[in-house]
């Protein structure tokens, strides 16, 4: 009898423990995806890769990808799916390619600063996944500050691209400045080197005097912000500039 009651008591305790450890779990219902008819062999990026946006905000341009077959001709009607780390939103998250073989989606990066790897995938005839990886950059507060300083002080010379509103001074300079995306070179320079060249001008590192000294114009934290922006947009990626957020 006592053994019986002991058994029941243990059962009761077990049940209580199970109940206590139970927590609410959210159930996500997968959205119905459109059914594709044709299949492609490869995905290529048409536009919208390597963009820069503030963390948590939409990328300035939509992402456009194209599905091609083995011969490299566009495939209309193929199903393309976009995925990325949690928090990244695609509008729409999947779609069928149009008559030009293209799908367009608007991307909003998640709230954390860093590189985001987006995966674009489709299935080929053999039902195998064909995927394309695209990288985008999200800026945190400090980098956004750096970007503003860049736009105000640096961009006119360091960015060779001209717009109607803003003509680049790059071509006018005898010794060409380095665009800040030039990771191959800039990743080799330490933060101390960059600080020196920004504060004391080109001659500080035996470089051109056309790069003026900004140390009496920009504050220390301004210069730090600029460097963190330069590190964030570097291509190839700066290994110390934070993680790459990819699909789990």
């Amino acid at each position, binding site marked *: *009898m006592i053994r019986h*009651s002991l058994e*029941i*008591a243990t059962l*009761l*305790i077990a049940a*209580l*423990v199970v109940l*206590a*450890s139970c*927590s*609410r779990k959210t159930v996500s219902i997968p959205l119905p995806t459109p059914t594709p008819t044709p299949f492609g062999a490869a995905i290529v990026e048409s536009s919208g890769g390597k963009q820069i946006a*503030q*963390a*948590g*905000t*939409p990328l300035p341009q939509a992402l456009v990808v194209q599905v091609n077959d083995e011969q490299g001709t566009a495939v209309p009607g193929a199903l393309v799916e976009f995925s990325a*780390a949690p928090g990244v939103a695609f509008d729409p998250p999947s779609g069928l390619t149009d008559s030009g073989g293209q799908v367009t989606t608007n991307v*909003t990066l*998640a*709230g*954390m*600063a860093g590189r985001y790897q987006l995966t674009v995938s489709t299935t080929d005839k053999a039902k195998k996944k064909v995927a394309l990886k695209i990288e985008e950059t999200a800026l*945190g*507060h*400090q980098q*956004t*500050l750096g970007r*503003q300083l860049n736009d*105000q*002080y640096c961009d*006119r*010379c360091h960015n060779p691209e001209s717009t*109607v*509103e*803003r*003509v680049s*001074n790059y*071509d*006018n*300079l005898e010794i060409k400045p380095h665009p800040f995306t030039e990771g191959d070179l800039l990743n080799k320079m330490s933060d101390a080197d960059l600080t020196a060249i920004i504060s004391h001008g080109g001659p500080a590192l035996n470089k051109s*005097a*056309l*790069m*003026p*000294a*900004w*140390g*009496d*114009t920009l504050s220390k*934290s301004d210069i*730090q*912000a600029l460097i*963190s922006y330069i590190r964030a947009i570097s291509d190839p990626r700066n290994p*110390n*500039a*934070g*993680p*790459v*957020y990819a699909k789990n």
Partner: protein
Amino acid sequence: MKEKLKSMWQTLFGDSVRAFGVVSLVFLASMAIAPAKNHFSEWRHYQHGYLKMIRNRSDAVTLQRHFQGGIQQIWLPDLGVTDRCTSCHVGLKEASLSDVSTQPFRPHPVIPHKVEQFGCTICHRGQGAATTVAEAHNSTLAWEQPILPAKYIESSCGECHREPLAGTLQLNQGRHLLSRYGCVHCHTVKMPDGRVLKATDDPPSLSHIADKTSREWIYAWLKDPEAYAATATMPNFKLSDNDARDISAFLIANSTPQPGSTAAISSKASPDPAAGASLYGESFCASCHAVQNAAGNLVGGDIGPELTRVGSKVKPEWLQAWLRNPRIYDVGTAMPHYRFNDAQVATLAGFLEAKADPDFLANVHLDAATPEQIAHGKRLVSDYGCASCHEIAGVKKPENFAPELSRIGSKPVTQLVFLPGMQRTLPDYIATKIKQPRAFGQGLKMPQYTFTPTQIDSLATALLAFNDRAATLPPSRTLAAKPESDYQPAGKAGKLMTDLACFSCHRINGHGGDMAPDLTWEGSSVQRQWLVDFLKNPNTLRPALIRRMPKFNLSDGEASELTDYIITVYQNPAVDRDSMPLGGYSQGQIELGRQLYYGKYSCQGCHIVDTKTDKGYIGPTLTSVGSRLTAAWIFQWMKNPQALRPGTVEPNRDMSDEDVRALTAFLISQKDPAKSEIAKARK
């Protein structure tokens, strides 16, 4: 079955000793739940995960030393902060963990504030005292405020920082849009410091609208403002055909003629498109007005209305009178009064009238208005609150036409009506309401705006900052915005400056636009003759800019009146314009200046002194700077440019007085060759 239960009851509680034993056991077990729950708690799980993660890192020793187990808490009584977030977010202050991508172990990105001084919930909201993810991040029955989505995070900056802040682009843009799109015409927004947010759009008065345009145009505009101009700030009220018909009938019937605003001009509009285009360009109309080009891109500024289809809108006689003097029709317009002669007015009017879209009004056929329609139109005008934005004779501006938004950021979720399928949070409600206001019910009046998703997020960010906490913060905790200056220049020159709408582009003493240079210290900076010549015929200092100073066709008297006023009144106390001579520097000093210019300071990267060799055009061209600026200004400018014009791109090079003197000598020797020749000839 019943038998079985009965025997079980007998087994457990058959006699009192056994019953006591069983009850004690159950009691003991339930006592054990509390420590068990604590042991299996989420934060302990995360702390274990953290220790496991750092174990194999090269910086493990440092991280381990920094690690403190148990529930962590930041307690800041004067801010009302009790935040236990760092119990799970263990690596928040470890900058070396920046390569970690899994939460909750990411270090916090660099911001100007320290977590010990502000806590977490001040910016992120959520429930600080909670120790489980669900309770801390989501809204619960006991705690409504969930974590603020990252895309709205800048709204928290706006609670204390009332002035525009570098690095919070979204918040700044949102605040700007609230004024620029006239949201605050209908929705009162009282800032925590008592100021009322003012609109910066300038909706035209409709009291004399019949002088300006036709009823058909009003009808088509009311139906869809964007069909007329892609940049329209007027929202779409989604009016029915009949409602648009009646409102247009009322506005035309209600309009009274404005004397002089349609005065006929002797010469007819000139159809010469080449002359028109060149006058449009010379007058720099594009600095303020946009026109859609053949490729469909808008080119031009957004101070004035878009002119792509202006020929389909305005009456020819009104346009001519407007071009001659816009202040007769609208005394407060941002448009300058160009002193065009009749031939110029005719040319420009002809050019603008040709910017018509024959399809725009092709399908609008309105019968003569009946008195009932006009009366109904008047009712609609007051129902939709048209007079909140526009001045309309005989219709009073409604007070508090739409809900006040001064504390919208604290509106309880229970008071909101949500659409099916949308997230039940305040930020989502605000964003959706801006995106599709009419979806929330029948008979709602808020019109449909066309905002981009980014603009909607900005607006929601700005609105979320208007909340109870922001309104009740002590002034010592806030950074107040600079009060808007209402500076007005005095006297005859002052009137002239208003007539020329200088303040639409230039800022003086904190008042005015930001398209053109700040003129607060202009009197210390330029030479008298240069300014007279420039006002008469503005040549361009910065060839890389599209937006430039237009030619106002000033008379000699006006140009010299204006120059005298500017030179006398807009003086910087630190720059004595007569303290340094405009010439007579030694050749040696000039030569030293040249060497410094091209060598040590390499000014040619941004400026042009010699058009043959120099190419830089970020800063103004300096080819004849010796005929333009005062030597005293050049000297002080190079010593510290930001002191004279905060935010200028010219870097402060920390020059010695000797270097600055030599550079000044070199620059002041760069005289305008044309003028030097005239001077020589006069001698």
